[in-house]
């Protein structure tokens, strides 16, 4: 369905059956929708849904394998960013394309300098920019060094850059990921102003509240395909959340209902976790958490709302700015936090979200990756003086792990990079489970994993739970959470917005919580 805008006939952008494949991954599959001229059009979807790829195709960074693009009613072949800019497209990237040590003016000018000698050129650019700033209400201190500007101003600068080059169709990629709520409001004001002047805006985001507040129409993408395109008036946050996380192969619950002993002492308890990331944006805004023995606690929510930081903090890879942790009979405070080696010593295991970045060393053979994190265990110490490694034992154990978890090919000597994603993940799981942990933190366990391996991994997690372990499961696949968890926490913007026992979880309820603001207590009217 296309949204019609008064006064214009042809859509600003028309995409017809765009498809793009990278190796084995179909990033975009037959994507088609229209963007009405002079409208704000949202494109929502999870990580990996294909929205960034689609916009990169529109902006000329990639070439589509199939499909057509029309810009302002004319068919367009966009071979590179220059041609995109010539057609009036402008892109504001998620990671700013700015040079911190140069002034704002220099950054705008770069690549489009009117003249060889800059003193005169700068004057001309300054005049044009000042007129532009007046016209659009976008104010940026032109002579300030970009590195010293607040993030909101940097973003305004990025928008100004595109307008300076004559953009009438702006693409913004996750613009509010790095903004505070106040800055977000300012951005919205700016965008509304630009829209009033006839610009068309494409907003890539996964923040549904913003979509509802700002957009005229929204396209939901999932797994490279368009799920739906609707005018805002005909949808809601909850409906969008449902459409976003959608339905895949439903892995239903198996086995008898598991009863957790609510009176048992928690294996892990975290209170008041607060963390600001590098840009000063709060990633964790006061999170409390407890894990009881023999339960799987799922953390649901659109990724990017603090789940990754939560895992890193609980695993000891990062220290929070504030907060306390009880684990294995020991207490930790923000100033003297846990570290990964100590965490393992306290029987906490961690299957990281990014297996290539954290989970294994790709250049190491499988048997060396299979002891990552456990290389200092006494059982592996060999002569002389305990400095050596019992490599025979390690290789044997790796072979055993591969056997039990059906990792293929069964070659402990093979380089870690040569295994498929699913087999790598199985090996990592085997490694973490082999130490019989009491607490297991696991992030995105089945991302990039084939169906058979998914079932196996789920069975392992249940088995661990049945043996009395506490599992914290972070997953952007709601189906996975619904299939495995005994209790579900929902996170949004660094807060835990709600907690539900599995019996009370429906996709609608969870969807609402994913879009909710503030902590759970605050919503129910409790004082913060």
């Amino acid at each position, binding site marked *: 369905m296309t949204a019609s805008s008064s006064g214009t006939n042809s859509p600003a952008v028309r995409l017809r059956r765009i498809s793009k494949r*990278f190796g084995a991954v179909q990033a975009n599959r037959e994507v088609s929708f229209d963007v009405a001229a002079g409208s704000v059009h949202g494109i929502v979807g999870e990580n990996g849904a294909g929205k960034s790829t689609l916009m990169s195709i529109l902006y000329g960074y990639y070439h589509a394998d199939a499909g057509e693009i029309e810009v302002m009613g004319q068919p367009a072949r966009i071979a590179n960013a220059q041609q995109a800019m010539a057609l009036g497209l402008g892109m504001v990237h998620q990671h700013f394309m700015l040079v911190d040590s140069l002034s704002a003016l220099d950054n705008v000018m770069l690549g489009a300098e009117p003249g060889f000698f800059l003193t005169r050129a700068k004057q001309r650019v300054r005049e044009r920019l000042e007129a532009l700033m007046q016209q659009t209400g976008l104010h940026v201190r032109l002579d300030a060094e970009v590195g010293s500007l607040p993030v909101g101003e940097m973003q305004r600068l990025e928008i100004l850059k595109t307008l300076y080059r004559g953009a009438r169709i702006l693409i913004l990629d996750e613009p509010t990921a790095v903004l505070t709520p106040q800055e977000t409001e300012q951005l919205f004001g700016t965008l509304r102003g630009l829209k009033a002047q006839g610009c068309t805006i494409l907003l890539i985001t996964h923040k549904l509240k913003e979509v509802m507040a700002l957009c005229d129409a929204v396209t939901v993408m999932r797994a490279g395909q368009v799920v739906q395109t609707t005018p805002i008036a005909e949808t809601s946050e909850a409906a969008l959340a449902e459409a976003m996380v959608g339905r895949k192969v439903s892995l239903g619950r198996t086995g008898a209902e598991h009863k957790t002993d609510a009176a048992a002492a928690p294996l892990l308890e975290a209170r008041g976790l607060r963390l600001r990331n590098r840009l000063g944006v709060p990633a964790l805004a006061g999170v409390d958490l407890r894990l009881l023995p023999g339960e799987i606690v799922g953390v649901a929510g659109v990724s990017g709302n603090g789940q990754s930081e939560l895992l890193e903090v609980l*695993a000891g*890879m990062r220290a929070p700015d504030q907060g306390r942790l009880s684990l294995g009979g020991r207490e930790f405070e923000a100033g003297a936090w846990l*570290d*990964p*080696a*100590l*965490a*393992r010593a306290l029987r906490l295991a*961690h299957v*990281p979200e990014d297996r290539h*970045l*954290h*989970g*294994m*060393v*790709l*250049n*190491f053979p499988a048997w*060396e990756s299979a*002891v*990552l*994190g456990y*290389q*200092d265990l006494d059982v*592996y*110490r060999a002569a002389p003086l305990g*400095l*050596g*490694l019992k*490599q025979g034992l390690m290789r044997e154990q790796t072979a055993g792990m591969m056997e039990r978890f059906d990792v293929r090919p069964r070659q402990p000597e093979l380089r870690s990079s040569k295994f498929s994603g699913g087999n790598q993940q199985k090996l990592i799981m085997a490694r973490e489970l082999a130490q019989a942990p009491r607490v297991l933190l696991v992030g995105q366990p089945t991302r990039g994993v084939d169906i058979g391996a998914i079932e196996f991994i789920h069975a392992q997690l249940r088995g661990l739970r049945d043996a009395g372990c506490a599992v914290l499961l972070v997953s952007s696949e709601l189906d996975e959470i619904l299939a495995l968890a005994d209790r579900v926490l929902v996170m949004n913007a660094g807060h835990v917005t709600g907690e539900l026992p599995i019996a009370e979880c429906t996709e609608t309820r969870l969807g609402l919580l994913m879009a909710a603001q503030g902590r759970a207590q605050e919503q129910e009217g409790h004082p913060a």
Partner: protein
Amino acid sequence: MSQPLALPRWMDLGLLPAWNLLVAIAVSGLVVLAIGASPAQVFWALLQGALGSGRGLGYTLYYATTFIFSGLAVAVAIHAGLFNIGGEGQASLGGLGAALVSLWLGHSLPAVLMLPLAVLAAALFGMAWAVVPGYLQAWRGSHVVITTIMFNFLAASLNSYLLVNWLRPAGSMSVESAEFADSARMPALHQLMQSWGFEDWPSSPLNLSLLLALLACVAVYWFLWKSSAGYALRAVGANPQAAHYAGIRPRWQILLAMGLSGALAGLVGVNEISGVQGKLTLDFVAGAGFTGIAVSLMGRNHPLGIVLASLLFGVLYQGGVEVSFDVPGFSRDMVVTVQGLIVLFAGAMAMVSAPAFARLYAWTQERRHG
């Protein structure tokens, strides 16, 4: 995302380096032509000079000993992700350490105590010289390449100062220290052989340090691939984030890597000072630190490869000396040139031919299966 190169392992580890070496040799041959000599004659004279006589072989192995030490030094650091160009300075300090201990204790201790002490001193002094840049990199973020280059010059100044003002025997005009006692001198191979009845064993600077070098190879191999500390070191070099996840502390690994690297480079002092000179001289390192870079690059940072590459360079150095007698215009500088060309083609330009090889491989695979 850039497509990864589809090169099978044997091509990556065997064919490509061999090709790069061949190119370096070919260009060297062109240089030889340019100076009016015959590459074939030079090549033959080189091999003859290096391997054709017992004496030549002795010299070749003596050179190789030094290169094994400096090559191992570079390799250990590279496995931790660091480029240690400070081998020159660390070797210099190693020689200084061996000399100081030898001059102080040489006359009071028997060889069986003195020599291990000298070795220890050489290693410790070299280690100290490398640990400072390592600390600066790990804790202050100072780039280890620049600091080690600076430390090379500082070592030269230090050595010069100590030799001229403190270690030079009173009244001596030459810039060198007093001679060590016999117990502080690493026994030369020909001495040993002659004392065992092989009267005709040719004399050369080859000494027991060769054994030390080979032991060092085994030790480095064991350390890197069989010990838990080596595992941690390689993890930091390969993927610092995964190392952090694994509870490994990258800073300490950097310190350890530089320390070991410096210690190995310091052992060059054992070969040159304790083994050959018998006294501390001004420029005994003579570029061995840089040759170590070439050796490690060619040997793919593995002790076995380093031994082979060291032999190659030993042949080059010794053969070069002999060739310079036969062929006008050929000198030690030609060897330096060849060394530079090897670093260029096998190091800096190592990947230039890789895409061509990948295409060739893909084409042969297609022919075979298509």
